[in-house]
């Protein structure tokens, strides 16, 4: 799953478990940037945000530092952060309870609003929503695992959506980027959960989809650290400043797993260098979404900026990631044939309901499924 249950530690605190992030120019209003953070996969109706967790978006100005095989972003050291916190619910509602939410703007202003209210909250230049919504992500986990186990593509013409009809806790933030971020037009963004307190401790962080699961979780291809559950360590890192001590371990895992994916169509589209480095490893380790708000919104824009950088051509879209993109097909096509072949289809082409192009974008939560007994 995109980042669902991404590591043993996350299992203890479902409300702190980040599962997805999206970033896109507001459809029809390119002055606004929208970011979405999803937590708590397969959340039942009573799910609420933790009162001990800071839910944070971090933005940094970015630019293209190099293109071609050594493609890389340069990211500023300065950043702008938006923090969301939540109170203990006061009411007794069992399903989708109202919870008082607070967000702190980069200017230090704190604004409060209620969760699960589609009108959300707003202050000057900012609009926010928090609450339970329909899971926008879709994939077939069984066939991914089968592919890894058999080392052969196991996707079916019609797959089974592992997340069909499930819900998540979502935070949606929309704001006028020129006023609040300054500079631009290219920004790098990550989201994080942190244990609140005098010295907040990072619990999880998330940038690109499927780094920790599809790209990192399989241990058997990694001859350097075959026994290492690497994801908790990776989660605890600062996305903009990985600790040099551990980069080698992340790199080894990604090199191994990306080469596995590349091998599945019987040809090598991503030849590794003399040190065994896969051409995508460095770009993926820059584990943040990059969005260029000067370019138009596009429904399938994930990794478009990066692919253009690798090819040495200008990018055409805003990049980032839109809610309705079939990002698993995009990722598999990227990893398996590098775009040099037909688009790979994992057999799942839609969620239970599409997100809309109107705030708060994600569809309302699905009714609880009937328990199979």
């Amino acid at each position: 799953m995109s980042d669902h249950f991404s590591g043993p530690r996350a299992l203890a605190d479902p409300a702190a478990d980040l599962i997805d992030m999206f970033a896109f120019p507001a459809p029809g209003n390119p002055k606004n940037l929208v970011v979405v953070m999803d937590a708590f996969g397969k959340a039942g109706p009573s799910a609420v945000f933790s009162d001990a967790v800071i839910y944070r978006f971090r933005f940094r100005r970015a630019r293209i530092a190099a293109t071609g095989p050594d493609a890389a972003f340069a990211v500023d050291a300065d950043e702008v952060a938006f923090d969301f916190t939540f109170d203990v619910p006061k009411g007794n509602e069992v399903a989708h309870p109202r919870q008082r939410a607070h967000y702190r703007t980069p200017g230090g202003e704190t604004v409060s609003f209620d969760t699960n209210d589609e009108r959300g909250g707003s202050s000057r230049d900012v609009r926010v929503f928090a609450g339970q919504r329909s899971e926008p992500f879709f994939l077939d986990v069984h066939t991914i695992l089968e592919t890894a186990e058999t080392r052969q593509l196991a996707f079916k013409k019609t797959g089974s959506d592992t997340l069909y009809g499930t819900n998540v806790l979502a935070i949606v933030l929309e704001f006028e980027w020129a006023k609040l971020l300054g500079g631009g037009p290219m920004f790098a963004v990550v989201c994080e959960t942190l244990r609140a307190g005098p010295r907040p401790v990072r619990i999880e962080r998330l940038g690109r989809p499927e780094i920790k699961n599809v790209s990192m979780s399989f241990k058997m291809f990694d001859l350097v650290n075959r026994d290492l559950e690497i994801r908790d360590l990776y989660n605890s890192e600062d996305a903009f400043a990985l600790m040099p001590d551990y980069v080698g371990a992340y790199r080894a895992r990604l090199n191994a797993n990306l080469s596995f994916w590349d091998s599945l169509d019987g040809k090598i589209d991503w030849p590794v260098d003399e040190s065994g480095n896969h051409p995508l490893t460095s770009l993926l380790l820059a584990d943040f979404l990059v969005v260029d708000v000067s370019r138009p919104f596009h429904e399938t824009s994930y990794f478009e900026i990066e692919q253009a950088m690798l090819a040495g051509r200008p990018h055409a879209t805003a990049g980032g990631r839109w809610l309705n993109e079939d990002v698993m097909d995009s990722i598999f096509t990227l990893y398996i044939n590098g775009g040099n072949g037909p688009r790979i289809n994992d057999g799942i082409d839609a969620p239970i309901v599409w997100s809309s192009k109107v705030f708060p974008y994600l569809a309302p939560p699905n009714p609880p499924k009937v328990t199979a007994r």
Partner: protein
Amino acid sequence: MIAAAYAAPAARASDTTEAVLTHGTIALRNLDAQIEGLEPDATLRSARVEERARLIDLLALRGSILGSISDYERAQELAHLLVRDAAADAAAFLARARTRALFHRFGDALDDLDVAERLAAEAEILNRERAAVFQGLGRYDEAYAIRVEDARRCPTFESLGALSTLCAESGDAERALRLQAESLRRYRGVSPLPLAVLDFQIGVMWMHYGELDRARHHLSAARLYVPAYAPAQGHLAEVEAELGNAESAIALLKPLAMTSDDPDYAAQVARILADAGSAEDSGYWRNLAATRYDELVALHPEAFADHAADFWLGAGADPKKALRLARMNFAIRKTPRAYALLSRAVAANDGANAW
């Protein structure tokens, strides 16, 4: 009562002196929400074994926090179905072993772990599961050897907490406290549930030592983390009763006795009221507990023999029944507590001939 030592899933480590934790009501809400989210696919053969096993563990966790036998029963049922559907998957047998241990079916649990081993379960996981079963059986030396090695090799909140709990149960109070402090120091999560479970275990240890003020301190701490922590509330009531605070004890127990499917709370209310001379009121709760103990002993004899024996020795006033159950319990597990229970039952049945 079913094994209360269920090891809650936990986060890793650090300095808890300034830890901010999720409010206990949110933690329980979200535990419910996790279960609600996974239940619809709980019996689908197409569902992932990992998720089905996780649901089983979450139900067992909720059962241990709310004192909910129906949660344990659902976990057991789902584990049985999981093994049926995934007989070649070690994770299914590990999950069933855990539920069998909850119901004190320790031999069956060890059999499941043997199957899991043949299906190539990870050695570390198997060792931890075996340690839990050995602890339940009172085979403390074997459990200790595994726990010490685990904590030495990988000193985390979980491994040190498990060792602390073992020391508490086997009578090494000083070491248990030291390990608890060490374990807490390494906690980095925000869930209050693992911390509540640790304090509960230490509180129960002090109860067994008769250190009632210390027991009260730790049991109260467990309830501060999670106000709805039923076994902590029940044991705190027991402490209050021992300290002569019958009214406080009754106030803590009655809400549990009226809502829980575990008869221990009704049994305690009956005993305290009887001690206070309220025979009529006591009779009501006694009958309630008696009926439920009979049901549960019929369904899960291994799990409820000890508490039922305790009940029939006290408020239940049927020492012969108590002796039969105490013998059954001692045959299953040779713990100091099982021996003490059998001794009391023998004494209540007039001595040596009863052995």
